[in-house]
């Protein structure tokens, strides 16, 4: 007899929990056994006793937190099924950032896909999303409103390059999250034929080196030397989003403030951040892709973890799909949680 989906996966204060295998997925507090979908800091936290994730995600956690980020670690091979307690578990690509995976759990004839954060758009820096037919699909809804429709990323990158050509005496400062977005922007710039050095804020350096060591060609990416900033006219500089408004970025020649994010689709958000060249480049699914993915999984039931849950739940219901919001706390929208440690004043007081 089939188990109920809530017998296979439940919600605890730590996050999603599978009692059959006694593990949590992306727990927000330290637990005994954690399965991690990807390396963004709101999903991958330090301090668990045992961590299972893809090789890349484990290495990213090591880069970020030091090699002792967990008691023990276990590498998950994409596509390979295994058993944890009474649950069948499989990691499959999620297309979000390098190493990102969905976690598929099967027990008693019911299959649940925990997608983590995912996107369907093309990304030269990670494996593409793989549709998993399932009974219950657990999705994020960061961009879960029909106004979020990400354009072709190449056109966005060309917008940046056109601006660099038009304003050769200015520096273009691109805010991008340190893990994934920054490297994707670099890779897209290279694909569009930009072969000059791309200058990096110090906070970008280690993860970018890691991407390169994984065989992703990003070209020459020198670190910005503070005293040399005034000489970087005509260049592209990539920094964490918190730095685009800081004094750090004001020392460049007449900087053009750019920000690569799905939020840039909405003008008011871009203006709030003082952005002059918004680049709508997101590592999350837009509305159309959220809907498409739900349909393609054929799931009869959808759980929405975080983001704009209400709209997506409403959409599912109009399609006859059972849906419920999980209202999970602790997960940021498009890496905004990544920003938390960088205090607003870090550069401003300097």
């Amino acid at each position, binding site marked *: 007899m089939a188990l109920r989906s809530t017998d296979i996966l439940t919600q605890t204060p730590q996050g999603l929990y599978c009692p059959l295998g006694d593990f949590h997925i992306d727990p927000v507090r330290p637990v005994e056994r954690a399965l991690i979908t990807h390396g963004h800091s709101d999903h991958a936290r330090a301090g668990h006793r045992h961590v299972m994730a893809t090789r890349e995600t484990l290495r990213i956690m090591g880069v970020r937190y030091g090699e002792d980020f967990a008691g023990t670690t276990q590498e998950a091979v994409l596509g390979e099924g295994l058993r944890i307690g009474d649950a069948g578990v499989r990691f499959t690509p999620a297309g979000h950032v390098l190493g990102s995976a969905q976690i598929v759990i099967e027990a008693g004839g019911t299959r649940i896909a925990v997608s983590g954060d995912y996107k369907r758009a093309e990304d030269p820096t990670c494996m593409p999303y793989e549709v998993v037919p399932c009974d219950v699909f657990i999705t994020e809804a960061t961009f879960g409103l029909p106004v979020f429709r990400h354009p072709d990323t190449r056109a966005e990158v060309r917008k940046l390059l056109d601006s660099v050509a038009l304003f050769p005496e200015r520096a273009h400062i691109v805010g991008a999250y340190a893990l994934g977005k920054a490297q994707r922007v670099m890779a897209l710039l290279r694909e569009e034929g930009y072969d000059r050095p791309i200058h990096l804020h110090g906070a970008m350096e280690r993860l970018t080196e890691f991407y390169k060591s994984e065989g992703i060609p990003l070209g020459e990416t020198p670190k910005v030397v503070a005293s040399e900033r005034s000489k970087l006219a005509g260049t592209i500089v990539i920094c964490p989003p918190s730095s685009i408004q800081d004094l750090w970025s004001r020392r460049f020649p007449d900087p053009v403030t750019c920000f690569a994010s799905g939020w840039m689709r909405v*003008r008011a958000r871009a203006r709030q951040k003082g952005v002059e060249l918004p680049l709508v480049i997101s590592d999350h699914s837009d509305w159309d892709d959220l809907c498409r993915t739900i349909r393609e999984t054929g799931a009869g039931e959808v759980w929405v973890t975080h983001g704009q849950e209400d709209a997506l739940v409403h959409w599912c219901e109009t399609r006859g799909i059972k849906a419920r919001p999980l209202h999970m706390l602790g997960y940021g929208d498009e890496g905004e949680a990544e920003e938390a440690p960088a205090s607003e004043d870090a550069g401003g007081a300097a």
Partner: protein
Amino acid sequence: MNRFAAFLDRLGYEPRRNAKLRLLTDYFSRTPDPERGYALAAMTGALMFKEAKPGLIRGLVEERTDPVLFRMSYHYVGDLAETVALIWPAPGHEAGLIPSPLRGGAGVGVGKSERIPKLAENEAPTSASPVDASSGRTTPTSTSSPQGGGEIGIGHNNPPPHVPSLTEVVEALATVSKSDLPGRIAGWMDALDETGRWALIKLITRELRVGVSARLAKTAVAQLGGVEPDEIELLWHGLEPPYEDLFAWVEGRGEKPESGNPAPFRPPMLSHPLEEEDFEKLDAADFLAEWKWDGIRLQAVAGHAGDGRPVRRIYSRTGEDVSRAFPDLVEALAFEGAMDGELLIVREGRVQSFNVLQQRLNRKAVTPKLVAEFPAHLRVYDILAEGEEDLRDLSFAERRKRLEALVARLDDPRIDLSPMVPFATWEDLAAARSDPASVGAGPDADAIEGCMIKRANSPYLPGRPKGYWYKWKRDPYLVDAVMMYGQRGHGKRSSFYSDYTFGVWRDGPGGEELVPVGKAYHGFTDEELVKLDRYVRNHTVNRFGPVREVEYGRDRGLVLEVAFEGLQRSTRHKSGVAMRFPRINRIRWDKPAAEADRIETLEKILERGEKEIHPLQDQET
């Protein structure tokens, strides 16, 4: 249209004037006629067509979207045009806005939906750009580029929608019937990308504001060739969209267009502020002086059209035709030529304060009551042309004679001369400036904000030429206030807390309290800004988004010496007063907050400025 939209979008985010100029010239040089001409017209507000109401747009989108999702989206985005532009479903697109009856079991759903959305959602927008680019350049018959048409055709029964150029939109809007309008708009919306739809809605609802003045757009056109912007300004009112003759002339491909305008705007001559050290270099004998009036600079131009009908116009300093706001003054322009002067409100022969003038400027509808209550008056100080004769090459002294003669002939109480201020030495003038009433300004002294000093032999030159005209303003009012809030600035200063709200003391229910009286964001040097910014960061007690509240009280807080030009009563401010041009004059690091000024200081200044005559009430001064 997509390209025009992308350009507008970029412009809208760019705060710097020179960068805007670069974007404009880049667009004009890369965009063919007539597309660029219509773009110029759209930015200068010169397009004529029946506008669409926001309700029409809303109706169109509601037919196409789930009402719950639309409401949530609108709530999130906050702007109707933007919400509609983003949520508008591409045709044949099953992106989940209206439930489809086709949804079957999982198996069927997967195969089918995988293909359709992929083509419709992802590829249509990308391949749309080359289509747009080509339609802008070529005749409407070549509607699609080969790759665009080919890709979309696969698995799709409908041909790709034709992406309209701005030209097509503008031309269609001029002729389309009211009943056909919704259908046309919907068709364009289907074909455009998100930014294109946004620009289309802003355009047809006449809400297109992208922070570009007409002057800036014309300057950009001038830069295409070696033409002075002022030359375009002179021609402008005789030109019509799409301005092909203008572009041809600027680019050296055609004759200079005729100025068909019988009452053209001529760019005004502006002055430099007089610095203390200038007196040593300037010989008082070379100069003439007149009062500087606290009004609005206007240019009154009158001529006659080909059919002999009189044409009378009043332009603002920037060349905007403001005739409609001053019918009482237009009526008085019974001359041929162009005069430069100041708009004032004069009641019973007495000039009213700027506060009174503002009450007329703030009204949208110009009613007979408004005109009676706030009679517009033109106090002239220069003449640029008389009849067909351009007087701008004459000296100021010669022009003044022509002006005096004209005003005498006009003999209209609504137009009078700005009197000259006699002086022999700079000391004389300083004395006159400090007490205008003593040298004949009489009761109008309150509307005087200093002196204008003009070289007697100066021609009338457009712009702000050096060495001819100076303004020597009355000293500003000063008040010591306490900083209460700091706000992040914009553009280059976005990383600094550069806008400061300050307050003065008053008696509150719980004793002495500070009440905010204004906000200033300039007057300090870059070095001082760094210090003020640090002060705000180090003394923050509260944060409200981009605003920080700082420490203040009797025994703590930073005193700012604020300079301002005037005060008026305001119901929007807690203190009941609003300042004109407040700026930080000095930072009083040394002064204890308890010694800052009290609200009574401001009340006194206010009372002085309120000695006005109320025409429709019993007289009280």
